[in-house]
């Protein structure tokens, strides 16, 4: 089991939902209106007048074989809309109740 956290600009939410749908991933947790900024090129997303955009976060725990397809799709979205901003982070899950 792996946890995949996708942090993305809210303006590309639909693209992210499509990834989950396409891969038939049913379970996820979603945070809306999240602030953050990237380490290298990313613009801040603070929801302020200066940086008006906002991020959202989707955390989904999936079987290991689904991780690569997810990352593949995230990369595609990123290529498509680089200015908007999307990142995915993966880590292992030890136990699930």
């Amino acid at each position, binding site marked *: 089991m792996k946890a995949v956290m996708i942090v993305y600009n809210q303006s590309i939410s639909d693209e992210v939902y499509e990834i989950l749908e396409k891969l038939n991933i049913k379970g996820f947790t979603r945070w809306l209106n999240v602030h953050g900024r990237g380490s290298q090129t990313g*613009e801040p997303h603070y929801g302020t007048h200066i940086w008006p955009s906002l991020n959202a976060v989707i955390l989904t725990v999936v079987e290991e074989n689904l991780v690569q397809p997810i990352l593949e799709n995230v990369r595609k979205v990123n290529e498509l809309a680089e200015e908007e901003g999307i990142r995915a982070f993966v880590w292992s899950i030890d136990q699930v109740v």
Partner: protein
Amino acid sequence: MNLPKLFVDRPITTIMVFLAVLAIGLVSLAKLPIDLLPDIENPVISVITQYPGASAKDVETNVTKKIESSLSTVNKLDEITSTSIDNVSVIQCKFKWGTDLDEAANDIRNLLEIAKRDLPDDAETPYLFKFGSNMFPVLIYGVTADESYNGLDKLIDKKVADPLKRLPGVGTVMVMGGPIRQVRVEIDPKRLEAYHLSIDQIAGILAAENLTMPVGDIKMGRLDYNLRVPGEFSDPKQVGDVVVAQQMGRPVYLRDVATIQDTLKERTIDTRLLGGKGMILIVMKQSGANTVNVAKLVRNRLPDLQKRLPADVELHMVMDSSEFIVNSIRNLAEAVILGGLFVILVILAFLREWRATIVVALTIPFSLIVAFIYLFITGDTLNIITLSSLSIAVGMVVDDAIVILENITRHIEGGARPREAAVFGSNEVGLAVVASTLSIVAVFLPLTFLSGIAGVFFHILGLLVTVMILTSLFAALSLVPMLSSKLFQRRLEKKEHTGTLGKFYETSEKWFIALENWYQNILRWALKHRRTVVVGALIIFVGSMFLFKFVGTEFMPQTDDGSLQINVELQPAVKLEQTKHYAELIEQIVKEEAPELRYYSIRAGVNDQGFSSVIMGQKEGSNIFQMRLRFSKKGERKRSTYEIADSLRKRIAKIPGIVNYSVSAAGAASALTGATKQLEVDIIGHDLEKTTALARKIEGKLKAIHGAVDVAVDRGRERPELEIVLDREKIASLGLNTAMVANTIRHNIYGIVATKYREEGEEYDVFIRYKPDFRHSIVDVENISVPTMTGKMVKVKDIATIREVLYPPEIKRKNQERVVTVGANVSGRALGDVTADLKAEIAKMQIPDGIEIEYSGQVEQQSESFRDLGLFLILSIFLVYMIMASQFESLLDPFVIMFSLPFALVGVAWGLFLTGTSLSAIAFLAIIMLMGIVVKNAIVLVDYTNILRAREYDLHNAIVTAGGNRLRPVLMTAITTILGMLPLAISTGEGSEMWQPLGISVIFGLLVSTLVTLVLVPVMYSIFETRFKKAEWE
């Protein structure tokens, strides 16, 4: 609340909401009546009191003064003026605009009840007269006739006026100046004397003979008979058969002592139309009725009525006030549509994308339609004020949509889906858009607080523009995102532009980028030479302000509605025949000078029947005539009516014997600013001689000032009168009194209506007076016989002396002080300049003690409304500052933006100077508007610079980048506003003069201030950031 999201999520709801508004709007539009002006009630109530037989001076002391002093306490009274002429006192109470006149009329009635007790016994009861919009003639027809002239008045009354009155909305239909049938009994005084008769006796006998009386009934058998004595004349000839006396057993018939004629009344008014005999038919509407509808109904009905008239009777249209209304409205409607088209073209040129253009352009009809709904709900009409408001707003309503759309597009270009981009793009700039919209509202909404006549004009303008701007804001936050989300394509789905269109897109994009680069280079240069830029701007500003010295001022722009009115006053006491001769002379001049003439009518003398134009502030007298001219339509002639007026003035001035004359606009539009002259100087003082002398002196000075025309003193020259001064002792010894003698003389000279002759249900006067041969000299008056109590006759010369005296024909008062006014119109120069010259001249004069000089007329209205507008200008600037301060959450940033404000003035100065337009209240309004519009552009620019600064761009970089980024939206909103108003500025149709100064001022002001905004504001920004803010930081 997230407005964009709400609507983007519900596209069907959105469309339904907007379609519903559209449907309601179209219904409202169909039901909106058309009129020239908003329903303004001229807040004047006149009190008219007849005091028969009193001279102007007596009327003033015994009636006018007393009523005036009691009326001076009426609530909300603005000014009280009065005119006392022979027999009549007219007091005008002017109230503040917007006063409830019904309430005021009640107050006046109550006070009159008290005042009545102080009035002389033989003064009649005062009555109130309210001049409403229904008093203004809707249509004026001239009626000409040849053979049928003699019965014309009854004919027209019955066959035309009566049927017209039955039409819905038609109020009074007046017939003026026509012939009136009269049975005239002209007495030979010598014969009368021989039979020991007097006119009074004859009048009594005629009245007693011309009588049909029911005398009861008798019952005979089974029947009941009514008894009557029929004595009424059935033929005018029977009047002569009446026996008036017995002389040595033989009857004396009336025809023995008099000639009896079935003829026309000798009128003291003479009306001529197109050089022929005729009369005038005036159609007025009921109050609240719609001018255009009433005129249409009457026009449609008239051909039908014309058929029933004899062939020689013709009806000519003299004035149709609906024509001017319909034309002005059509012109303005065209201006709105044309402005809208220009705006759409600009958007298309900038965006080069039909979908985006449609999205933005839809806000125009939407805001217009909401404006119609608003007008319908408030019960207003489509008039020149409301339509001009629409025309002003049409270029501004797209601004919000442009900014929103631009940001949405930017997100889509960035890769976002249209749906997401629509929501986030709108939210990002939503606040800035709201702030910039509020800055526009801040300059328009305060206009609704304006008072006075300017308030009447601008009140609805302020409200309507506010409504439209707020509507456009709503549309920008709802309709625009929704449509964007549906109509726009994602970046990857979008086809690349191909073919010619693609080439066009590529090339134009290159041009735009080149423009942006060029602008950014200018910005870089300006930032390096900040001092040069600031000093240069200062020089331009100060230099341009001097231009205002060459720009004249006036209250309202003069409009050319194709009509003129010539008023001519001859020496006092000139008889009507002589006046008619002068009228023909001027008729000839007009025909020679103005081939553009289409129709004219002349009215000379005093209207002895019915309505007196004294009530309307016009003069009447046997020595006065008035000529109304109507010229061809504006497009069909080369000269304006003002040019024609000038050429006429030159000719009229050369005619000897004319004391005063004026050539002025006569149409509906001139009624806006009142019938007063443009420039009026009131000389207030009790001494009639001194004030008249001073008035003549000022008149002389004013005539010498270039640009002043139609100069006249409103106190007529003293009129020679003959006074018959009775010797009271003598008449008393003969058992007579003043009233008896005066009545006898009146009946002989003026005449007496003895009885009425009836024919076919109509009544005609049987009028007795001396033959004209016996009314020609002082000797004739002296030889009048007055019967004494003993039945003997005594001559007037034995009991009275006749002397010639001079009388002022009228005395005017203002705020309970005698006043004489020197008035003038202005031609070829601005009103303000002529006034300034006159003031300088008057300052040099010796003003006697107890005399005060005041300026009134449009000058007064002008300075009043300029003062008001000046105040509102300051208020607007404050409000705009406050909105910006809250928008930027900074007290300093707004100042940066406000540096562009003075340059709006620079543009206005150049615009007015180059086009030779005067600074009127309308142009002043444009300046106030500019405060909001100019700031709007700068807000967008500075706001973005601030954002970039906060994103840690360095100062220089932030300014240059923001400049490049915001150049297109700034140019776009500025150009749409400019082009939206272009039709107003360049239109030449009927009524266009009114709003031209506004169009010119806004266009030039916005042009200059936009250019300044783009360079000076960034420079000021950098100065503020480096100097003040640094100081703050430390």
